[in-house]
C-alpha cells in the first residue's frame, strides 16, 4: 500500500493537509494507493527503459564536453484542475500580450519611457536591449513568439509567475514526451477521466511560424529551426520539434546570406531560400557581423536580412529585453499601462537593488530573501538566504554592492510539493511548472506544461542541469468531458 505523505508547511498538489485527495486528483491517488510501491516501481522502470531506448536525452557539460544523459522522469503525474487552468491560461495570455507591446514599444516609439512608467536609464543599462533592433516592426507587433513562463505555488496555494523566458525557452519537447510515457504507464486512467491533450503544440507552433513568413502563410514558406548543434544541452528538443513540425533542422554553417540580403540554405540541389527561422541560438551568437564577431554558430548577415524583411525570426532578436529579472518587477505595471487591465496572475513581490531604498532592504534581509542575478538562466547564481552560509552571504553582499542593477531579491516562495517516487516509495518533492505560450495573430497556451521536480529531499532547485527531474502534468476536467481549447 503506497503511503502518501505531505511535507510540513508546503502545499501538496495531489493531497490536502488532512491527506484527502484534491478533487482533480481523486482518481490518481486512488490508483496510486491501489497499485502499491512495488507496482509503481515496476512502472517507473518501464518508463525509464522507454526513455532510454527512445533516446530522450538532455546534454550536460562536464570537463568541457557535452554528455548525453537520459531524461529524468518521475512516473507520478502532477494534477491541476481545469477550472484553475483556464484562469491561469488567461493570465499567461494577458501577460505575454503586455510584454510584446512593451518590447515593440521599446524598439520603436518608447512611449512607456516617455510616460515615465519605465525608467530610461534602466533601459540603457539593460544587457539584453539591442540597439540593432530599433525601428524594426515584426508581423503582428509580436517579438516574443514563444514564451516559457515559470509558475510556482506558495504554501497558501496561490500560483505565482516566477519568471518569463522570452529568449530561447526550452522544455516543451519533454512535456510532450512525458505525456507519451505517462500514457503507457497509466493507460487506464486516461480512459476514465478527461485529461486535456497536449500534443497539438507542434501543430500550433508550425502554424504560428508559417503565419509570420514575409510573404504570408499561403506562400508555401520554407521554415527552419536554427540550432547551435549537437553539443547544445537542448539539441534533443531542437531535433524533436523539427521532426514534429516537419521543418529542416539547420546549423549556422548550413545558411548563407547573399548580396540581396536573402537567407539561403545549402541543400543537395544547391542554395534554396529560407523564409522563417525558428532560432534556438542566443542573440549574441546570431550574426557575427553585428554581435560577437567570433561566433561560428550564427550566420553572417542574418540581421541585415531580418531588418530588410526578407526573413522572419522567432523569437525576434532583442526580445530578451523583457525577460530580464529587473523588467519582471515591472510587469504588473506594464499590464495596467498597455492593456488597462488588472493582472490575472500574481507576480512574486520583487525588490529591485537598482533603487537605493529597495537595495537597503535587501542588504538588511539577505538571510531571509532569495537573491538572483538579473540575466542568468538555468538556476545559476541563485542564493536562498535562509539556507546560505555566512560566507555565501558576505560574498553576495559584495556582488550586489558592486553592481546593484544586476540583482533582484524576492521572499522565499515555499514551492508546492507533489508525491514523487524516491528510493522505492512516495515522498513529497518540490515542483514548479513551465507552461509555453505562443503569440502571433492569436495566442495559444499549452494544457499544463512541463512540471519540474527537485529530486533531493527539501531542495528547491528543479533545473535538469542541476539534478532536477520532471513529471507529466495533467489538466483534469471534472465537469466537462469535451476537450477544452484555448484561444486567448
Amino acid at each position, binding site marked *: 500500500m503506497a503511503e502518501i505523505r505531505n511535507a510540513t508547511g508546503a502545499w501538496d498538489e495531489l493531497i490536502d493537509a488532512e491527506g484527502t485527495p484534491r478533487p482533480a486528483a481523486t482518481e490518481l491517488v486512488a490508483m496510486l494507493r491501489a497499485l502499491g510501491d512495488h507496482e509503481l516501481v515496476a512502472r517507473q522502470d518501464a518508463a525509464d527503459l522507454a526513455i*532510454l*531506448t*527512445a*533516446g530522450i536525452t538532455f546534454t550536460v557539460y562536464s570537463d568541457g564536453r557535452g554528455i548525453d544523459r537520459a531524461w529524468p522522469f518521475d512516473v507520478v503525474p502532477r494534477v491541476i484542475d481545469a477550472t484553475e487552468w483556464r484562469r491561469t491560461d488567461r493570465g499567461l495570455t494577458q501577460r505575454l500580450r503586455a510584454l510584446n507591446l512593451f518590447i515593440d514599444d521599446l524598439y520603436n516609439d518608447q512611449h512607456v519611457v516617455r510616460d515615465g512608467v519605465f525608467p530610461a536609464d534602466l533601459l540603457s543599462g539593460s544587457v539584453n536591449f539591442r540597439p540593432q533592433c530599433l525601428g524594426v516592426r515584426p508581423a503582428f507587433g509580436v517579438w516574443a513568439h514563444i514564451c516559457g513562463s515559470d509558475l510556482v505555488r506558495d504554501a497558501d496555494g496561490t500560483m505565482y509567475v516566477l519568471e518569463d523566458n522570452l529568449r530561447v525557452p526550452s522544455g516543451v519537447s519533454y512535456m510532450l514526451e512525458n505525456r507519451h510515457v505517462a500514457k503507457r504507464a497509466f493507460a487506464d486512467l486516461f480512459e476514465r477521466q478527461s485529461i486535456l491533450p497536449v500534443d497539438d503544440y507542434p501543430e500550433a507552433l508550425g502554424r504560428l511560424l508559417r503565419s509570420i513568413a514575409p510573404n504570408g502563410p499561403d506562400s508555401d514558406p*520554407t521554415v527552419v529551426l536554427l540550432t547551435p*548543434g*549537437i553539443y547544445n544541452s537542448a539539441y534533443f528538443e531542437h*531535433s524533436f520539434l*523539427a*521532426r514534429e513540425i516537419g521543418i*529542416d*533542422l*539547420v*546549423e549556422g*554553417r*548550413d545558411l548563407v546570406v547573399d548580396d540581396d540580403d536573402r537567407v539561403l*540554405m*545549402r*541543400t*543537395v*540541389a*544547391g542554395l*534554396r531560400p529560407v523564409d522563417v527561422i525558428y532560432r534556438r541560438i542566443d542573440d549574441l551568437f546570431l550574426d557575427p557581423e553585428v554581435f560577437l564577431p567570433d561566433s561560428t554558430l550564427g550566420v553572417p548577415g542574418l540581421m541585415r536580412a531580418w531588418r530588410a524583411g526578407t526573413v522572419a525570426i522567432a523569437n525576434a532578436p532583442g526580445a530578451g529585453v523583457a525577460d530580464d529579472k529587473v523588467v519582471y518587477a515591472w510587469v504588473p505595471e506594464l499590464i495596467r499601462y498597455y492593456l488597462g487591465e488588472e493582472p490575472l496572475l500574481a507576480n512574486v513581490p520583487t525588490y529591485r537593488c537598482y533603487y537605493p531604498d529597495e537595495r537597503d532592504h535587501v542588504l538588511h534581509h539577505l538571510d531571509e530573501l532569495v537573491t538572483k542575478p538579473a540575466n542568468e538562466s538555468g538556476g545559476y547564481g541563485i542564493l536562498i538566504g535562509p539556507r546560505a552560509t555566512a560566507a555565501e552571504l558576505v560574498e553576495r553582499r559584495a556582488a550586489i554592492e558592486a553592481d546593484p542593477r544586476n540583482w533582484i531579491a524576492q521572499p522565499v516562495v515555499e514551492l508546492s510539493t507533489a508525491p514523487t517516487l524516491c528510493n522505492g516509495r512516495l515522498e513529497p518533492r518540490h515542483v514548479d511548472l513551465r507552461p509555453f505560450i505562443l503569440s502571433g495573430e492569436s495566442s495559444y497556451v499549452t494544457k499544463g506544461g512541463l512540471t519540474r521536480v527537485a529530486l533531493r529531499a527539501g531542495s528547491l532547485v528543479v533545473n535538469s542541469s542541476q539534478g532536477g527531474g520532471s513529471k507529466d502534468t495533467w489538466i483534469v476536467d471534472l465537469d466537462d468531458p469535451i476537450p477544452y481549447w484555448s484561444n486567448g
Partner: protein
Amino acid sequence: MLLSRVAENLYWAARYLERAEDTARIVREHTNLIVDLPTRVAVTWEPLLAIIGSRHAFDARFTTADERSIIRWLVAERDNAGSILCSIESARENLRSSREVMPSDVWQGVNDLYLFVAAHHGDGIARSSRSRFLERVIGDVLAVNGTLTSTMSRDEAFEFLRIGRNLERADMATRVLDVRAGSLMAAVAPEYEDVQWLSVLRSLSGQQMFRRTVRGPVSGESVLRFLLHDRDFPRSVRFSLEQVRRGLRALPRAAYAAETCERAVELLEQVPVTLTGTDLHHWVDELQLTIATVHGAMAETYFVSHTPVR
C-alpha cells in the same frame, strides 16, 4: 529539399551500419570456418585483418595477431574506427544529427543496438558468446534496413542512405573476394577448397542464393561470377552498383557521380572470372579504386565537409 550536411550524415550512417553488419558476418563465418577445418590446416585469423584493412594500426596496438587480439580489434576496440563498436557508435552519432528526416522507429532501432553494443561488446570476444552477439548485430541492422524499406518515403534522404549502404556493401564484397580468393589461390589446403569457397559465400550471406541460382557444384569460378556479376543477389557487387546507380538517378546534380558509377560498372563487366592465368588481385584492386571515386564524387558534389561526424 535535403540539407547537404544532413545528406552527408545519412550517407555515413548507412555506411557505418553496413560496415558493422558486414564485419559481424565476416567474423562469424571465419569463426565457423576455423572450427570446421581440422587443426592441421593452416588457416589463421590474419585474413580478417587484411579484409578490414587495418593491419598497420592493429600492429601498433597489439604484439601478437592471435584470435583474441584480432577479434577484440574488429569487434570491441575503441581505437579502431572500423570496429563494430565504433561503427555502431558513429552510425548513431550521424543519425543523431539527422533524426528529423527519418521515421522515429529507425532511430530507435539504431539507438537500441548502440545501447546493446555499448553494454555487451565484451561478449563478442569469447567464442562461447561470440555468435550470439554477432547475430544480434546482424539482426538489428537488418531490422533497421527493413524499417527503412517499409516506412520511409523514397525521398532524397532515402537515396543517400541507399547509396551509402550499397557503396559500402560493394566495397566490403570486393575486400572479401580479394583476400579470400587470394589466400585460396595460394592453395594452402586443396582438399578443403570447396569448404573455403562455401565460407566465402557465407561471409556475404550468399550460400543459399548461390545454390538456387547456380545449381551446380561449388567452384572458385562460379562463386566469383555469382558474387561479382549476379544481377539478382542483393549483396553482389553488380547488384550493389545498380542500387547506387538507381539512387543517383533520383538525385539532383548527379551527373558527375553517375559518370563515376558507370565507369565502375564498365570495369566490373571486364573482370574475368577464371582463376587461372589472371591476376585477380589486380582487377579487384582496380575495382576498389573505381568504387572509391564514386564516393569522391558524392563528397565533392553534395557534402559540406569531407569528414563525417565521429
